[in-house]
């Protein structure tokens, strides 16, 4: 009996300790969200203010002065279009990689992974020049086109890891029913790959939504999505803290909500299918 009590106590301590660490990691996020609702005085007080009457001043400010709703729509358009384009190009390719005996397939898979490892800044300058030459500079389209290319290697590998798990007998059965390769993919494999598509779509949407580097150099003014807008709060004369935090919350809120939906697939997504989790 004392032994069982001992075990139960140990478990409670472990859960409490790990829970405490989780809370520690969440604190910075919560602190920013709280800050976005504090009055200027509470926010800039040298002693941290824990209890406060929430105010909406900063929220009113960012919507009235910076037309945040406009840039929110830009972000949504860019992310949604990128997601659709990435899946449309990525799914057939992932299917091909999963099912057909391609020449030097392992090398191809490794090269795809290597491509994803290239820091985007390394190609930003040539792409910027290319965008200027093609007249795509300062359009939403250029961000959609570029993000699609940058997300494709990720989508290929993750989708392939899902398709690999669908038994090949499904393909066989459809083929015996007289389906050509395209029909096999569309009618037999695609319906079973829906969880993989949803997982991949959410990741691509979040990554594109978070993207700052390209958005910052490829578009300006009206065309900007949300992340570069944060720069408006960091002025030469100082930081407009309230609006900055409200903006930070606007940018991060959809990401946090979608991430919670994705938690089951996190390990797989973050290692491009290398870890099943």
């Amino acid at each position, binding site marked *: 009996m004392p032994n069982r009590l001992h075990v139960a106590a140990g478990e409670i301590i472990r859960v409490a300790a790990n829970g405490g*660490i989780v809370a520690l*990691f969440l604190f910075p996020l919560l602190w920013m969200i709280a800050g976005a609702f504090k009055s200027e005085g509470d926010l800039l007080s040298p002693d941290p203010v824990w209890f406060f009457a929430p105010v909406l001043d900063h929220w009113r400010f960012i919507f009235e002065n910076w037309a945040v709703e406009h840039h929110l729509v830009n972000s949504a358009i860019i992310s949604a279009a990128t997601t659709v384009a990435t899946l449309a190009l990525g799914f057939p390719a992932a299917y*091909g990689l999963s099912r057909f005996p391609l020449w030097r397939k392992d090398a191809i898979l490794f090269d795809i992974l290597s491509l994803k490892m290239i820091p985007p800044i390394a190609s930003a300058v*040539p792409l910027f020049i290319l965008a200027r030459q093609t007249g795509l500079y300062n359009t939403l389209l250029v961000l959609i086109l570029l993000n699609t290319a940058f997300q494709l290697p990720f989508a290929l590998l993750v989708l392939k890891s899902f398709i690999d798990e669908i038994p090949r007998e499904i393909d066989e059965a459809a083929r015996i029913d007289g389906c050509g390769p395209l029909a096999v993919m569309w009618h037999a494999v695609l319906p079973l790959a829906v969880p993989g598509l949803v997982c991949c779509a959410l990741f691509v949407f979040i990554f594109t939504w978070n993207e700052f580097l390209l958005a910052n150099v490829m578009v300006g003014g009206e065309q900007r999505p949300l*992340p570069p807008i944060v720069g408006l709060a960091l002025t030469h004369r100082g930081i407009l803290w309230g609006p900055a935090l409200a903006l930070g919350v606007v940018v*991060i809120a959809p990401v946090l909500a979608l991430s919670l939906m994705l938690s089951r697939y996190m390990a797989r997504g973050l290692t491009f299918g290398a870890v099943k989790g």
Partner: protein
Amino acid sequence: MILARARGNLTGAIFVGPAFCYILLVVIYPLFYSLWASFTNMRLTSPLTSFVGLDTYAQALGSEIFQDSLVVTALFLASVVLLEFILGFALAYSFSRMAKTHPAMRALLLLPVMATPVSVGLIWKLMLNSDFGILAGGGVILWLSDPQLAVLSIVIMDVWQWTPFMFLILLAGLEGLPKEPVESAQVDGASRWQILLHVTLPMMRRIIVIAVVFRLMFAIATFDSVYVLTKGGPARATDLITLFIQREGFVNLNIASASAISFLVLIAVLVVTTLLFKRDLADAK
């Protein structure tokens, strides 16, 4: 047989083709453009571009700003990968010893990984602010204006954001391990430390390589959060190579120099991925 294989190849190529061509166009083209530009003296401000051979590389490698940036980047990469591995492993081990899996705790812990880097930069700019930041000890610790503390600041920010990533991958690894080796070591009277060092860690080899290499590669690309938090300052103390390239290309408009350094980074990344990774990735199949 050969014909059937060739047909499979062709059908496969038709499926893979469009995505592949697109990636080649948008991702590979810039690399060749960079390579070409790096052998010239191209500037966005000057219409005259001429071929200068390796001069741009020589200038870049010889410049003190570049060398400093390289040192800061190396220091940053080594610290964050090491710290995140140790903390992530400790946390994963601690989670694996709980009786239940607690999916809600895991999901919440992963929020920093997915969080928008620009917002992450803001969060830490707020918490480390020397006048009213909650971590500034009432204005005593000058996190962002002292050069050494500024480096520590970007490390802390990165460790906060990415330790959960290491945690998640290593936890998946720990949970996938067979139980028998640990049990038989227990029967043989091995201590918990001995089991961890001599049984668990060796079995985790592949997953540790995946976790570390992925983290290293993403860490090299770190830009947004540091750009918001310190913009490379004070006095270039946190001037990561990505910030350096961005400044050369988009502020100084020195395309040649930005391209040359991009290319050096690229080669470094490809060498590291190939050396560290190819074998372990192949093992997976």
